[in-house]
């Protein structure tokens, strides 16, 4: 919609700019604070411009073990990456197959299966944390990547989204492919996957962010520093009993923790922006 009202234009711009400031200010503060020395931050006044210690702070995080954790930021970021990728890819793989079965196959209790999957939306890991921990512990998966990933890998949301996406594929497409001799797996590979590309990309971004931002589960499932994630390390960095917290390191770590999700969004953006406008179906 387009209105030719200059005043309205200015007002909307003003609101947008305010929004950008509200969302951007904390990031800006983290970015500037991470370039100051520990002493400069102890005044309690947050500096709004860059200091001169930036490189040193980041280098310290990446090269030296973090006090209280004993591993470097590089290891933490790698752990986070493994977990986020594992969750995102696993969720997509499982819900892809589940949604495919629900949409394209006629089997008994099909609708029941769908609703059972859907109901698990009400059971996020926070709700089922005690039994889930028990199961993972008995499998001996505490302090392993598998233990961090597997309990989070089933996704009702993704199944539901993919189901909606698959249902928008015309039935004739499936029938034409069948007449051409394509079996179920062939149809999945040659039709469903390429035609759901944009949806899969959008889903990947959401699920990657979900995995990356996990806090409670990795806190329980990963006890050893070797498996700690970047998000968890933020808490360790600001926790100190007898000294002031090293804010310059905490903010630098926060900045580094934000970067991979940003990279994923930028990389996938072209897919899902096209997904909104593409009429290829």
């Amino acid at each position, binding site marked *: 919609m387009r209105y030719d009202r200059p005043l309205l234009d200015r007002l909307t711009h003003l609101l947008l700019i305010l929004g950008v400031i509200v969302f951007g200010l904390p990031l800006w503060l983290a970015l500037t604070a991470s370039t100051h020395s520990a002493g400069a931050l102890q005044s309690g006044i947050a500096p709004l411009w860059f200091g001169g210690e930036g490189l040193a702070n980041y280098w310290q995080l990446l090269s030296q073990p973090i006090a209280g954790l004993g591993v470097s930021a590089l290891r933490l970021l790698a752990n986070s990456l493994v977990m986020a990728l594992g969750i995102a890819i696993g969720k997509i793989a499982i819900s892809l197959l589940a949604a495919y079965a629900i949409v394209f196959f006629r089997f008994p209790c099909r609708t029941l299966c769908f609703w059972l999957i859907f109901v698990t939306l009400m059971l996020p890991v926070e709700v089922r944390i005690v039994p889930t921990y028990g199961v993972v512990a008995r499998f001996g998966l505490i302090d392993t990547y598998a233990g961090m990933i597997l309990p989070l890998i089933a996704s009702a949301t993704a199944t539901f989204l993919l189901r909606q996406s698959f249902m928008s594929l015309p039935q*004739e497409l499936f029938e*034409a492919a*069948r*007449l*051409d001799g394509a079996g179920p797996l062939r149809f999945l590979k040659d039709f469903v996957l390429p035609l759901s590309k944009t949806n899969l990309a959008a889903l990947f971004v959401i699920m990657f962010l979900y995995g990356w931002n996990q806090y409670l589960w990795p806190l329980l499932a990963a006890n050893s520093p070797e498996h700690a994630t970047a998000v968890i390390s933020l808490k360790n960095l600001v926790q100190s009993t007898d000294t002031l917290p090293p804010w310059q390191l905490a903010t630098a770590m926060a900045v580094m923790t934000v970067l991979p999700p940003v990279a994923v969004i930028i990389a996938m953006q072209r897919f899902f922006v096209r997904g909104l406008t593409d009429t*290829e179906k």
Partner: protein
Amino acid sequence: MATLTCRQLSKTYPGDHRAVEALDLTLEAGELMVVVGPSGCGKSTLLRMVAGLEAISGGQLIIDGTVANALEPARRGVAMVFQNYALYPHMSVFDNMAYALKLQRRPRAEIERRVHEAATLLGIDALLERRPRHLSGGQRQRVAMGRAIVREPALFLFDEPLSNLDAALRVQMRQEIRRLQQRLGASMLYVTHDQVEAMTLADRLVVMREGRIEQIGTPMSLFEAPASCFVARFIGSPAMNLIPVKRARDGAHLCARLQLSGDPEATARAATLGLRPEHLRLDPQGELAGTVEMIEPLGVDALVHCRLPEHHEPLTARLPMTALAASGIRQQGAIRLAVDGPLHLFDDQDRRLDHAARLTPLPSLFAI
């Protein structure tokens, strides 16, 4: 080129809804058979059962002498052209046409040759690199047919393939399908609800109604001798006039002063009289007298909708514009028409009565 035989073919949906009931049908090799009927008559279900997209509830489906009831769709040797084309949107025209051959693991050179042959035949060889969404309706239609031709199927199935095209293109594609069929000598089963399409394309026509076959025959035989009121109404445009016959002590009448005479068998059993609009002519001495309700000019001809006394059903006549203009007939005015063609008689079960009959005007009551 193949034959198709249906023996007592039935489709029953859950809830005992019978879409197709005990259907017997034989499609000769190289024949173009058109199945026509109103929506919901089971014609698409029949086609989908032949294709293998719909499970068969009863009876036998025989393609080229083999029972194909349980064969996978791809193994039946049939190719189908869908109403909305069902082109693969993410593949180029070439890949659309080549897909079935690729799945059959044909050599690359053979695939290329067959696709190019079909594309040349259909005049779409310049479009092979395009995606379906960049094609016009007519081009998409051609690609859909090309995809069927490339497979060299024993039997082509068409499911209302022209209904998404505009009128001019529909006429053109209709002719192309006919030409193609004759050139390939292919057996085709073609489903449509458009009776003009059915008449012009068919070698033989199947009229279906509520899951049953109402009549099978050549288009002209159905036009000239419809087996029932339903077929009479369905075949021919504008539709045949069907006027109830009134019974009186002295025989069958159309109106008070218009008696149905001829074969005593016919006059005794006739319940409905059928008159084609084309078989009525303006005549000041004509036996049918009525009032004009509406005149629809078509160009050369006009459709004149009249009302006969004592009847609710309108009587439509197709009259030349020149004759109409010369006669000075206008809306709400009186009109007299003479019957200039065969009368069709139907009994009270709406079945055809094959007896000769004519309309005889009785002398006016005032004249006695």
